[in-house]
């Protein structure tokens, strides 16, 4: 359907969309995916305005919610008009919303609310009074299952955790307001196995006002600080300094400052980062620990390699999970849905991908098959595929995922899920590269202070002096970058380069039992072993071949779609080691010190980072162990810890029993497992512990499903109590979930306004085109025509409270390419299709944003007084 007069093609607006063969393709088109378990209140102000709202005010028409739902909504005790910048908009009365959900003990219910800016509302508009009730249907009507929770005079969230004695079943969650201004809300449910909370607002972390932590460029010298006009400075080690501006003395925390002052402070930090001599500038954050929650990444159960080298335990110690550590993946590039334009990275990696100015695609000549140019190096490291009518090989995407795939409730999780990925393309046609291109790429990477590790899952070169020189330059006598390389797959003792160079960590591959994979090289190329897989074996007896599952892509028919694949090779082993180094370095940096490649190699050669699994000729220093590595980095200062493998249990109709293997760390620590119990009557546990007490034990866990409802989801915890000789009684909790049946995920995020915003010229920041789309099958599709060549931002979101702004906190939002980090799309004369965005009520964590997004108030929808009904109409 083409909308006359506004130049917008829309799909999913009731009239269909798309173009026939006789019509030219639209200038810009794509789709918006909806995050799993997302729902929308059926009577938002936007729906009421259009007369399309559906009543959810009564128990009989309460909206159903799935487990772990996130629903965006709107409530107001009265109707009225907005004022000021939103004076043409109206809010409506909707004082109650009802939802139904299956609730169990331990479920966390959170209501986060958000108000329009103060100048949108009358000065006497009070903060809203609101209440959350959990209701159960009884013969006589509804009764309160828990004490109601109310709040007023603030915008704080209401959080409820259902107690142990709570009876599992179907309940109504009632949200209501009785006085005060209109507000948006996000209601989220999290069952006990979901560790992570739901962040619906842009994080504004606490930091010290007018202070910044900066890293100086290598040759800048301390005199560069003087040019910044700072009032005081403090050396934090290496090239890192803490600086202050303004009067010296004790500084306030950001929480006591106004939004304008906080934004000004962040702008100052941002400007510091752009000064000559400054590599990196960050606020002086007040740190809290971060925790990886891998169990909601749906392929995590296939990632046998992570528990095998004790990565989950290392996450407990390395709270930052590699945050801020840069891993350059010199490989085939990175999967992109739009490889010609770049961006739109694989959704399991996008959060962590960073680009730097300059050349990041070093493939040149006949090996270069990308379409940005003809045989030239360029700035776009996207993987163009193989350039043949075949299933392309996205090797670099697989490698990057192993090292640093994000912990984002989908797919896999990397060894260092908060580390940064810097993709550098050095392999082109047929997965081949030239020595010259590789050397140029390493020389470039060596000069980038953001990069801490180079992962080279490649080989085949002879002993090139130029390559060795480039690597030595990056290594910088142990003070620069760690270089990790694959040891090769020829089952040979011949030296393979670059793995065999002295300043390179050559990594061989083991299968699921720690035995060297038959293909993995031995001898001078091997410094250490890591999981690389062996598809011919199921050595760990988990029912699957011992292969490495990671991110991948398909390019069927020219359409690039993200996916996952299982591979094997020393290519897969190397990024495990790169990720472990990122965990170590990230932890030490967070603690105010650092960790260098020289320290890593020294510890490795001393056997402090590895388990001994075989002779040095075959296995080098042994099998990398993430927890041992953290212990070495922290100089042995680790508490006694009992780990469980697997770290969580998921039962279903086919799997109702499992065995937990419990291991103590440090390994010489003896523990006695005293009990393994659960509050759920359907869960049974039996302890099998050798006598006398040792460093390991086994617990068999069985779910008795005979009396359980096939349509319900159950969750509980197995509480394991153990006695240590040095630290007394300690506890380990293993989350357990069970669902016998399945139900479709009918995800829905509400009507979306898609905006194309100019990023240049006189109309910079202005909306040049907009469309209104509704979802079908969990996605929105959009298409725009008659857009002039230029640079644009592409954003979409809901206007739940009908104040004329989308993407405000509490509203669903999608920004290209990544939420929170919008980048421009460059449109030329050729159409751009297949642009993919992701919408959610969730906001990215600060680690993904780089600097906090302070003062962001959403995007203003362009007024349209006339036109089809799908375009916004305004209150008179």
């Amino acid at each position, binding site marked *: 359907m083409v909308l006359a007069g506004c130049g917008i093609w829309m799909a999913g607006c009731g009239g269909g969309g798309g173009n026939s063969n006789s019509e030219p393709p639209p200038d810009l088109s794509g789709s918006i995916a909806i995050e799993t378990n997302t729902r929308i209140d059926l009577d938002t102000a936007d729906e009421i305005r259009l007369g399309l709202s559906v009543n959810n005010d009564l128990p009989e028409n309460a909206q159903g919610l799935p487990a772990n739902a996130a629903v965006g909504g709107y409530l107001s005790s009265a109707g009225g008009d907005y004022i000021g910048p939103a004076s043409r908009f109206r809010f409506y009365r909707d004082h109650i919303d009802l939802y139904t959900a299956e609730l169990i003990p331990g479920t966390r219910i959170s209501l986060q609310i958000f108000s329009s800016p103060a100048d949108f509302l009358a000065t006497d508009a009070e903060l809203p009074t609101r209440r959350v009730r959990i209701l159960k249907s009884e013969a006589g009507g509804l009764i309160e299952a828990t004490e109601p929770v109310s709040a007023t005079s603030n915008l704080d969230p209401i959080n409820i955790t259902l107690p142990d004695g709570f009876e599992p079943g179907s309940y109504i969650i009632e949200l209501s307001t009785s006085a005060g201004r209109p507000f948006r809300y996000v209601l989220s449910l999290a069952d006990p196995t979901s560790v992570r909370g739901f962040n619906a607002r842009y994080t504004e972390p606490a930091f010290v006002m007018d202070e910044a932590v900066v890293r100086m460029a290598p040759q800048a010298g301390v005199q560069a600080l003087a040019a910044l006009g700072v009032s005081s400075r403090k050396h934090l080690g290496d090239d890192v300094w803490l600086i202050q501006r303004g009067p010296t003395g004790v500084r306030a925390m950001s929480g006591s400052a106004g939004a304008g002052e906080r934004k000004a402070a962040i702008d100052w930090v941002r400007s510091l980062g752009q000064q000559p001599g400054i590599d990196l500038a960050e606020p002086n954050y007040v740190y809290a620990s971060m925790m990886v929650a891998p169990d909601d990444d749906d392929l995590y159960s296939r990632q046998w390699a992570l528990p095998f080298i004790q990565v989950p335990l290392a996450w407990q110690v390395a709270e930052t999970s590699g945050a801020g550590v840069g891993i350059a993946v010199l490989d085939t590039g990175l999967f992109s849905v739009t490889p010609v334009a770049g961006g739109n990275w694989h959704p399991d990696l996008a959060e962590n991908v960073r680009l730097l100015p300059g050349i990041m695609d070093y493939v040149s000549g006949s090996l270069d098959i990308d379409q940005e140019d003809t045989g030239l190096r360029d700035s776009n490291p996207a993987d163009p595929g193989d350039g043949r009518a075949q299933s392309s090989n996205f090797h670099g995407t697989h490698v990057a995922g192993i090292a640093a795939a994000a912990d984002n409730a989908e797919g896999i999780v990397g060894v260092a899920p908060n580390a940064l990925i810097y993709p550098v393309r050095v392999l082109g046609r047929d997965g081949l590269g030239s020595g010259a291109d590789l050397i140029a790429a390493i020389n470039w990477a060596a000069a980038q202070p953001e990069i801490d590790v180079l992962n080279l899952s490649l080989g085949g070169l002879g002993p090139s002096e130029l390559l060795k020189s480039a690597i030595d330059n990056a290594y910088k006598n142990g003070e620069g970058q760690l270089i990790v390389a694959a040891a090769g797959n020829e089952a040979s003792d011949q030296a393979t380069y670059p793995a065999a160079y002295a300043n390179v960590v050559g990594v061989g591959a083991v299968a699921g039992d720690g035995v060297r994979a038959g293909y993995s090289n031995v001898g001078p190329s091997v410094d250490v072993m890591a999981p690389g897989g062996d598809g011919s074996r199921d050595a760990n007896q988990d029912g699957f071949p011992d292969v490495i599952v990671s991110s991948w892509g398909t390019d069927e028919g020219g359409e690039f779609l993200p996916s996952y694949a299982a591979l*094997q090779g020393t290519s897969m082993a190397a990024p495990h080691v790169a990720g472990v180094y990122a965990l170590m370095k990230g932890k030490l940096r967070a603690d105010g010190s650092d960790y260098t490649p020289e320290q890593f190699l020294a510890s490795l050669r001393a056997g402090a980072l590895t388990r001994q699994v075989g002779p040095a000729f075959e296995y080098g220093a042994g099998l990398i162990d993430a927890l041992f590595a953290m212990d070495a980095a922290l100089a042995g200062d680790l508490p006694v810890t009992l780990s469980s493998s697997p770290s969580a249990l998921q039962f279903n109709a086919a799997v109702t029993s499992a065995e937990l293997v419990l291991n103590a760390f440090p390994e010489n620590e003896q523990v006695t497992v005293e009990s393994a119990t659960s509050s759920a009557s359907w869960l049974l546990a039996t302890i099998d512990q050798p006598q006398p007490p040792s460093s390991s034990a086994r617990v068999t866990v069985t779910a008795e499903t005979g009396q359980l409802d096939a349509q319900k989801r159950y969750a509980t915890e197995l509480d394991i109590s153990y006695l240590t000789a040095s630290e007394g009684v300690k506890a380990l909790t293993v989350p357990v979930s069970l669902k016998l049946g399945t139900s479709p995920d009918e995800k829905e995020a509400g009507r979306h306004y898609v905006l194309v915003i100019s990023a240049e010229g006189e109309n910079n920041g202005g909306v040049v085109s907009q469309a209104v789309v509704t979802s079908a099958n969990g996605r929105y599709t959009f298409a725009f025509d008659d857009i002039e060549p230029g640079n644009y931002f592409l954003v979409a979101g809901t206007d739940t409270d009908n104040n004329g702004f989308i993407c405000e906190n509490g509203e669903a939002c999608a920004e290209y390419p990544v939420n929170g980090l919008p980048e421009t799309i460059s449109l030329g004369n050729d159409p751009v299709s297949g642009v993919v965005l992701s919408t959610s009520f969730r906001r990215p964590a600060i680690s993904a944003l780089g600097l906090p997004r302070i003062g962001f108030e959403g995007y203003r929808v362009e007024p349209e007084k006339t036109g089809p009904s799908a375009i916004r109409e305004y209150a008179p």
Partner: protein
Amino acid sequence: MLAALVLTACTRTYSSTADGAPLARQITASDQCGVGSEGLTYLASKDDLSTLDRWPMQNITMKPLTELDFSREHILIVGMGQKPTGGFGLTLANSQIVDDTLRLTVFLRRPPADAVVSQALTTPCAVLAITPDHWQMLEVNGNGLAPLRLDPQFNR
């Protein structure tokens, strides 16, 4: 009757089908077919495609296979076996029917010496659509490839 028929002594040679279509054409290929040894796999019907589900680590674009008209063409997968790195692959170069034998020639790619190559194991293959008619035996040859033959007793 085939369109291109060359009579040389008693040898019959065909290079296309009766309606001028090629005897064989490559419909896709992959570095990760999941077959660890050299060999041929013949798929005569859509139901046979389920065979591929049992190949570990199989990453073949399925669309060209599922869209094939099996009444006119069948599928032959020519597997190169497990290779230690990237850079390997094969492409159909020629097809002929000589007497009762469909003779296919493939070109094998290998990474040049001293090239930089990815270090994941690969299992390259070419997926061919071939005519099911006018041949009883099938043979695949290539540069450096030992001849691959379907069993002469193969019952199509």
